[in-house]
């Protein structure tokens, strides 16, 4: 997982599938980065390289959203594959935050 600030956004880029172990490894880092109060107004989760996502992964994404909102940042997901975009749509998550 790559986290860096790019202009106005904090970009969290995932290099592997969003599974429970990946989440476990990167949970704290992600949380800290968002709460760090850096000079960014939005959080962008880039999952262009993510092919599959499990339940924990979904919870993680929702968690990211919640954390961003709690810290007054907007949240969006980019690079979602068709499957994942579909999933988010069924779960109506795309009505809560932008999924691209």
């Amino acid at each position, binding site marked *: 997982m790559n986290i860096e600030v790019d202009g106005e956004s904090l970009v969290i880029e995932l290099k592997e599938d969003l599974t*429970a172990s990946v*989440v*476990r490894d990167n*949970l704290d880092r*992600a*949380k800290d980065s968002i709460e760090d109060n850096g000079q960014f107004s939005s959080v962008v989760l880039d999952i262009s390289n993510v*092919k*599959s*996502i*499990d*339940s*924990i992964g*979904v*919870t*993680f994404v*929702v*968690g*990211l*959203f*919640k*954390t961003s*909102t*709690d810290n007054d940042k907007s949240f969006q997901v980019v690079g979602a*594959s*068709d*499957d*994942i975009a*579909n*999933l988010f*749509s*069924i*779960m*109506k*998550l795309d*009505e*809560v*935050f932008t999924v691209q």
Partner: protein
Amino acid sequence: MLQNEEFISEFVEEALTHIETVENNLLHLEGEELDLDLVNDIFRAVHSIKGTAGFFALDNIVNLAHTMENLFGEVRAERLELTTNMIDSLLEANDMLLYMVEHVEDSQNMDISKYIERLNVFLSGKDAPKEERAHGQDTLRESLKHGHRLYMVKIYLNRDLAKQGITPIAFFNNIASIGNIIESKSDISHVEGLHNVFDDDIELAFVFTTVLEKKLVAQALDIPLSNIEELDKDISKGQIDKLLEEDGREETRQGKEKKGPLQKANTKGVKAHPTTPSSKLPTTPSSKLVEDSIRVHINLLNDLMNLASELVLGRNQLLRTMEGHTKAIPGIESILQNIDHITTELQEKIMQTRMQPIGNVFNKFPRIIRDISKNLGKEIELTMDGVDVELDKSIIEALGDPLTHLVRNAVDHGIEKPEVREQLGKPKTGRVSLKAYHEGGHVTIDVSDDGAGIDIDIIKEKALEKGIVSQMELDEMGDREALSLLFAPGFSTAKTVTDVSGRGVGMDVVKTNIEKLGGSIEIFTIKGGGTTFRLTLPLTLAIISSLIVEVAGQHFALPQINLQEMVRIKPGDDTRSIEYINESEVLRLRGNLLPLIYLADILGLPRKATDEGGNMDSIMRVLVLKLGSKRFGLVVDSIYDDEEILVKPLPKFLKECRCYSGVTIMGDGSIAMILDPQGIMEMADLKFIGDDGVTDGEIDIPSMSDSIAYDMLLFKASGPEVLSVHLSQVARVEEIQKSKIETIGDREYMSYRGRPLMIIRPEDHLPIQRRGESGEKLYLIIPKYGESRVGILVERIYDTIHGVTDINDKDIKVPGLHGSILVEDRVVLVVSIDELIDMACPKLYEGGGIYGG
């Protein structure tokens, strides 16, 4: 798991209908603009198959249907274009689906991998099938109509799915494979940031439709039964939304749930939004299930038909017995009339129940033509006319093979390759047409092509090669008879036996099959122009018109369909004489030679006694029979009545007797054998003397051997015009006395063979002159086909002529007339017997068809 056979066969029946829809729609979609209605019908059809097959655990069928459905889903969403290649693969997959449905018990053992692979090639680029989005009201209503159930499912992502090792995506794939999601919602209120990602849980609630029972749903989705709740089918969309919004959790749930309505997060809440459908769905599904008809077992229909036919015979007996006695019993006359009338109607209606449109047989041909023409690199356009023409169900079924053979022939041998056609100045696209139409009491089907026509010389060559005829016989043969060699067993004009139309066993089997149905087949061909095969079939199987004849004191029934003429030969009559050619007896009739067969000889019965001189000292009765282009005379002892008889099948112990085609029960309860002219001819092993088109009498017409030649009967009514009718439609001509004609109301009748016959005067209906009749002697032309008993009253019969080719139907367009012909510079009108009869007594119904069906 294939337990209940009855349910399986219902599934098969419905699946077959769906598979047909898919094929028809695919063919329609080809090359045309995308018609979403058609695609949606396909989608629904495949989805239906998949759903019900899933219920029976017919995994192969489910999987193939699922892949097809995915592909259609992409097409429907316009993410993929429907190419010819795709259609090919889909048609193939559909065929495999058909095969599996037809062999349902074996379907699990079949290998469908190559079909799935091929379809997946089109789907490639997309990782997995798209999920069904919630479609809202339309999908809901449609699915429920097709017998789906409605369930609400609530699960937790972690607790229920993750713990079972199911990913959310896989879970929704599962749902999509068993049904349709109508609406869904998730509750993320319990996720508090990233602190407790492993403990916080997201609850998912969704409503979906499926054909499956609750237990099977739980199995299919791998979730506890308690998470599933069946909903009332009449629920409204609004109520669904409400349900999802409410907190309707089961008591069995444990955990950290906070009871309370789903929370909104910030400004945007996770609410239930009815999503607008992504593509337009039609609101009226085109359903194959028409509500105003019912399924009836074919055995029941057969029984009804038998009973109806027996009733007809019983009614006939009753009327016959009561004849002459009705005056003695007051009031019985009208009762008999009533019974008579009701019986006729009842029989007609019951016959109608068995009627099916010929479209049922025709509709497999677009596909066949498409496939063959592709294989052969030919361009072919198929037109079909008269798809609504109805025939008895058993005839329809028996027509499939013969028609297929003829169509394949037309494509394979008839239509030339596009380059060749171009060179010949023909349009590149060849035309094959199937035409069905009613004519009187029979149905005609023309299979035509505008291809190369049949080369008679090649036929003659082949026949010689195959040893079917000798050179000498060939020399004696006229062109029409040479053409009929095509139907000889063991014949094939294909220079190479292509796998498309098969070996040479085709044509003679076609002919035999058609004749078994009581029909006949004729060829008309023009070299370089095209070929038409004309099939003539009776409307129904069971009851046929027959003539009762007697030989050696025994009665037999002869079907009328082949009967052309009845000839009575008095000794000393020199217009008709018996001659001997090569030791075979022939009859010279109006200049033509007719081979004679003694029915007694065929049956192994004694011939009628002769006097010491060995001469027939009494009248000889000969029935002129015509089969295809062959004619012969059948000599019998006596001729009795016409009878409408019920044909009963020949018992298996007698099937080897070729001279019989069935048995019938006569009016007096005794059984009579029904003769088979074809079989008789074969048993007689006739060598046919060529019918070389030589005409007789005063009228001479040059015959053109390659074109259609008709036989016509010339006559005149009271006026000076010369009229004619097709000889093939004439049963017989009878001489009658004018004084026997009775007038009842505005119609004329005559008692003919004990029953009333309606008389039609051509001058009453046709634009010809009427003059007073000259004499007492008149003639009746009795038409061959038709339910009603009529006779056409004419004053003089001239003769028959052969080899009429052109009927001019352009200058004279009048109802009742086909047109005109030129005979020795005279204009002769060609009368249409069917139209004339129609004009004289209009029918009460048009065609057949079950009420409302």
